[in-house]
């Protein structure tokens, strides 16, 4: 039974994993092509100087990429479940409903982890190739909330898509908009340092959020 559910999730997610990971890696690659180009034209010393003292963020183009990937995976995984209320079929299986949902969530989160993890490691490795540890640390601190925002929007999409009453879509959307905005607050490089762990904790907690609207869904809330 579990294998069948996993297979169903795999069918929904396999292409999106491939596409999002490829696009993510291309996005990171393009950042460093720009860095390499600027090193060649302005010199590494000037580029380091601009990064350290003039606030240049070589990684700024990465800001909304995790958000877009989070939306894509969330929609690919949950939207088909709402067509003709297919999710109800899963809830009729002789397995605990919450466990099914958590398994689905785990599949989506793993997909995000694979996609973001490969991007993050590539970003870290290439940053360390071009820059000293001070610049790399600041960059990692700055991009981490952006990656976390990808998870947060995925959790909010699962919450919204599973919600049976349409007017709550708007309300959940407003809360999600206000909340995700915190992760994307413009900041100086490394400025997120005091809050990164707090954001990570809130993101982990939010992974349980879709249980709420799924409960409303299966209880037939109108």
């Amino acid at each position: 039974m579990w294998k069948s559910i996993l297979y169903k999730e795999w069918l929904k997610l396999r292409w999106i994993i491939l596409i999002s990971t490829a696009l993510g890696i291309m996005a990171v690659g393009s950042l460093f092509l720009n860095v390499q180009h600027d090193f060649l034209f302005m010199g590494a010393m000037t580029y380091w100087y601009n990064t350290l003292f003039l606030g240049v963020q070589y990684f700024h183009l990465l800001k909304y990429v995790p958000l877009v990937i989070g939306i894509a995976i969330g929609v690919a995984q949950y939207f088909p479940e709402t067509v003709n209320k297919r999710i109800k079929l899963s809830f009729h299986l002789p397995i605990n409903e919450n466990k099914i949902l958590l398994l689905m969530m785990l599949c989506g989160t793993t997909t995000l982890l694979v996609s973001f993890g490969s991007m993050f490691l590539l970003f870290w490795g290439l940053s360390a190739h071009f820059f000293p540890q001070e610049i790399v640390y600041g960059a990692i601190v700055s991009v981490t909330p952006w990656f976390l925002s990808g998870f947060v929007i995925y959790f909010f999409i699962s919450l919204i898509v599973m919600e049976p009453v349409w007017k709550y879509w708007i309300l959940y959307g407003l809360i999600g908009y206000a909340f995700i905005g915190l992760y994307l607050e413009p900041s100086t490089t490394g400025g997120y340092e005091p809050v990164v762990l707090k954001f990570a904790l809130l993101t982990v907690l939010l992974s349980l959020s879709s249980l709420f609207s799924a409960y409303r869904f299966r209880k037939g809330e109108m």
Partner: protein
Amino acid sequence: MVRISRYILVLTAIIGSAVALPNLYWTIMEKPVNSPYVMYSIIDKGYMIQRSTPAIVRQDTKGNSYTREEYEKKLPMMFYMQLASSGTMPDSINGVEMDMHALRKARSTYRYQPKVRDSPQPGLYPLFESESGRVNLEMPNDFFRIQDWMVFIDAKSNSVDEAKSNLFTAVLTKRGFEFPARIIAGLPTTRKSCDEGYLVSDAKEQLFHLKMVKGKPYVKKVALPDNLSFKWIECVDFSNKLYYAYLISAANEVYVLFQDTYELLKLPVTGFNPDVDELKIYGDFFNYNVIIDGESYLKNITLDNKFNKVDEYAEKWETKYQRTEGKIFGAIFPFELSLKSDNSRYIDFRIKYSENFYWILLSLLFVGAEIYWIKRMKNGIMDHLADLLIIAVTGIFGFIAVNIFQNKFFK
């Protein structure tokens, strides 16, 4: 598990609304509070005040108003270019002949902002050649950091220059430097008149002057009185070359470090809180205007050109929370949450509680409305006790949160 997920969502909604709603309120309601511009007049031996809201008003401390031209004549050290241009610059002031070159050389401007101190520091700095024999300064090919040792990193290869690192580390160690550095302060730019390197405070809070002279390290330990340590140092590059830096001590005192003699002088400045106050120091031929600029107060401590106190002016005004719009804010919101601060460049959750308790009335009203709704839906009060408690404590934010993510587990 489902109930836990609901409370997580309620928390999320409280955080989101506690940031967004106060932000929206202040965007609509906030009115500018501009601190006055107060400068000491060498002509009147008193203060001239310029206020910019709602219209520009120029006065002295007795309440006399002045036109722009009259105001500029009262502050000849500040407007000497304008006065010279219009032919109204006095030939002498206080018996001293006015020489434009000397006036220009004596001018200095410094501004301390709390957010510059409370921000991620670069950690890597360029060490310029101080005596290259060239007119212009040149950017080196490497940056240094001072942690377990002093390391120079070549930017092109992103690798350590071992020989140079060992040379500087050895000299620092020989001078009694204790690694790592706590503060590294300098002017890491080629846009300065000359290079004086860096002032570095070490792990034992000793102060050192570090620069590179003809490729060799120059390290000078600065003699400090007992128990004097610094929390912030900012180097300056003024035309008169009188001192290297302004230094703020752990006890919030302001010092200057004189050039070449390395003598430290404590300025007679009191009431400065570097966590929240800006500090502006305007130097001219006769005086230093040391201005402490807080959220709701301003203090101008005027010194003569030997750093002795001449006069002082202080003024207070209402904060935005003490004004009508702030009181209304306090009646609506029990607190506000913000990620940014005027005094820091770090992002963090910062909670500011309401300065009054009128919000409790609104919270009780929301609790009453919630009880009415629970009764109307024929639910038990005890099943909603946690929600009522959340509303009582977090007011409007909790009311929004528990009603968006509704508690219907008992239907």
